């Protein structure tokens, strides 16, 4: 079947659906040539496969028994899938010098506390900047916009000095507390609050004597649920992926991600276990994203930069 017949078939299908369900079924078919549609689907399909293939390979690899991991020539797919790599991973977790469960505990603690703090701190600040007309709020927001323009590498050296002055080197605090004030989080919340929290509602609540804290929790936050769910997701996946860190020396304070990197780079002997740990590692953020996806898209639609 050559490309011409595919396009013709698709065009027939498209015309049939438009006839049945009205022209909105396929967006603006005036500007959409059938050939272009097919071309886009093909490109999208190929690139989607390229994007997914490495992840599929990690999953496949994690299910391979030892003899299939070292078969020559290597095969992409697994013939006799086994969960042995996963059981090995958990056995390894029990027997390593620092129990593996400790790494997981560290990561969970950092992710949960850091995310909650981030959402609360950012939302409070975003609400005040968006909805309380105090002098200086525009200045504060412009600093936030500028700080979107560089990343944490720049501040890592001086932060190290700050952390040692505070005595936070080699504690959880060094990772958790700075995570409370992410600029992108505040930025997203502020943009969303500005468009989605109506001033009239706030005014009437204020007239009835509600204080700002109450208004924030009872009126503003429910109105911007998609935004804080998005922030929850972004913050969580960022912290979940915390790896080796210059502030942390003690082995028992290191994260799951760090431990996994050690297993994977430790060498070929643990290829299967390494893949299994990558799979364990990616399940959590992907699940969180699937649950939150519609909220995320909704939030992102207001996030652009207004001039």
């Amino acid at each position, binding site marked *: 079947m050559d490309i011409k017949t595919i396009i013709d078939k698709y065009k027939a299908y498209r015309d049939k659906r438009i006839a049945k369900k009205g022209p909105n079924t396929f967006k603006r078919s005036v*500007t959409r040539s059938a050939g272009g549609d097919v071309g886009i689907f093909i490109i999208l399909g190929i690139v989607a496969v390229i994007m997914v293939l490495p992840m599929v390979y990690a999953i496949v690899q994690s299910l391979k028994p030892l003899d299939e991991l070292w078969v020559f020539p290597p095969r992409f797919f697994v013939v006799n899938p086994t969960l042995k790599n996963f059981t090995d991973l958990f056995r390894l977790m029990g027997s390593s010098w620092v129990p593996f469960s400790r790494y997981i505990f560290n990561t969970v603690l950092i992710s949960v506390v850091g995310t909650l703090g981030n959402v609360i701190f950012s939302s*409070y600040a975003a609400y005040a900047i968006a909805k309380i*007309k105090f002098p200086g709020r525009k200045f504060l927001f412009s600093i936030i916009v500028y700080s979107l323009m560089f990343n944490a590498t*720049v501040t890592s050296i001086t932060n190290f000095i700050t952390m040692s002055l505070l005595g936070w080197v080699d504690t959880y605090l060094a990772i958790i507390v700075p995570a409370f*004030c992410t600029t992108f989080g505040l930025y997203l919340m502020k943009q969303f609050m500005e468009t989605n929290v109506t001033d009239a509602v706030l005014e009437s609540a204020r007239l009835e004597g509600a204080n700002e804290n109450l208004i924030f929790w009872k009126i503003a936050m429910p109105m911007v649920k998609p935004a804080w769910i998005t922030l929850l997701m972004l913050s969580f996946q960022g912290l979940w992926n915390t790896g080796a860190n210059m502030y942390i020396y003690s082995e028992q304070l290191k994260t799951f991600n760090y431990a996994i990197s050690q297993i994977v780079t430790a060498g070929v002997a643990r290829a299967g276990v390494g893949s299994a740990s990558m799979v364990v590692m990616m399940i959590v*953020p992907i699940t969180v994203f699937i649950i939150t996806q519609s909220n995320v898209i909704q939030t992102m639609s207001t996030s652009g930069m207004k001039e």
Partner: protein
Amino acid sequence: MAKEKAIIRSDISRFRWTLLEMKKNWVGYLMVMPFFLLFFIFTVVPVVLSIMLSFTTFNMLELPQFVQMDNYIRLILDDDIFLIAIKNTMIFAAITGPGSYLLSLFFAWFINELRPKIRAIVTLFFYAPSISGNIYLIFTILFNGDQYGIVNAYAMKFGFISKPILFFADKNWIPTLVIVVALWTSLGSSFLMFIAGFQGINQELYEAGAVDGVRNRWQELWFITLPTMRPQLMLGAILAITQSFGFGAVITALAGFPSPDYCAHTIMHHLEDYGGTRFEMGYASAIATILFFMMIGANLLVNKVLRKVGS
């Protein structure tokens, strides 16, 4: 309301008015305080302090000593590896920045053509690599250096190469592979933002466009969609640029630190070397300061260009 305010302002000086407003809205300061207190400690102060320390030598034990421009002079004249790092950083940023931006934009555009359910799934496929922890390490297994690596095996099978390539130990391969992996993981927040942007465009604009003679999807993208999405395009550019300077961790994980022949040595690695290992904080601060101005400079420049595009 507005009228009342105007009267007050004409009665009293601007300064008094500001004070009154501050007093009236004091709770606003209370609410931004927790965030901005931490933000100043961990972001604003470090940047300022880093600029100040860059003119000193400081080893964390003795007090900083003022040395004028010595660190910068040493960086540019004596430190060959730093020049390599600058070159590599610029190459990585120049490819991954625009690369990830265009990938995000075009695939968001393509994905927008799909029906909602399929759209959600394909979005996940493209977004997943950027959130899946250190999944990029799978590339060390895919590109394993012996014949058990699947890429080597297939390349040998089809006769492209006669013996396995040590991909992540070969300075000719590392930069390319690292860029590919970086791009693979780069469809992040700006990608989602573009998807949201395409979905949020008012359909009536397209109908009006069709009446005005927009005949194909490229014209539609250029004349209707992109101008409407300017806010997203601007923020997306900032995120892409900032991200493009920050792929150091991916590079370290794939190519090791230091990388063979410093072929993938970036400013970030140099910073880590002097700050984290040698504790030459003054020198490291000078590196951080240069990186800071590079990022801000790149952002302001691109921002200026983007502003012109629409007008």
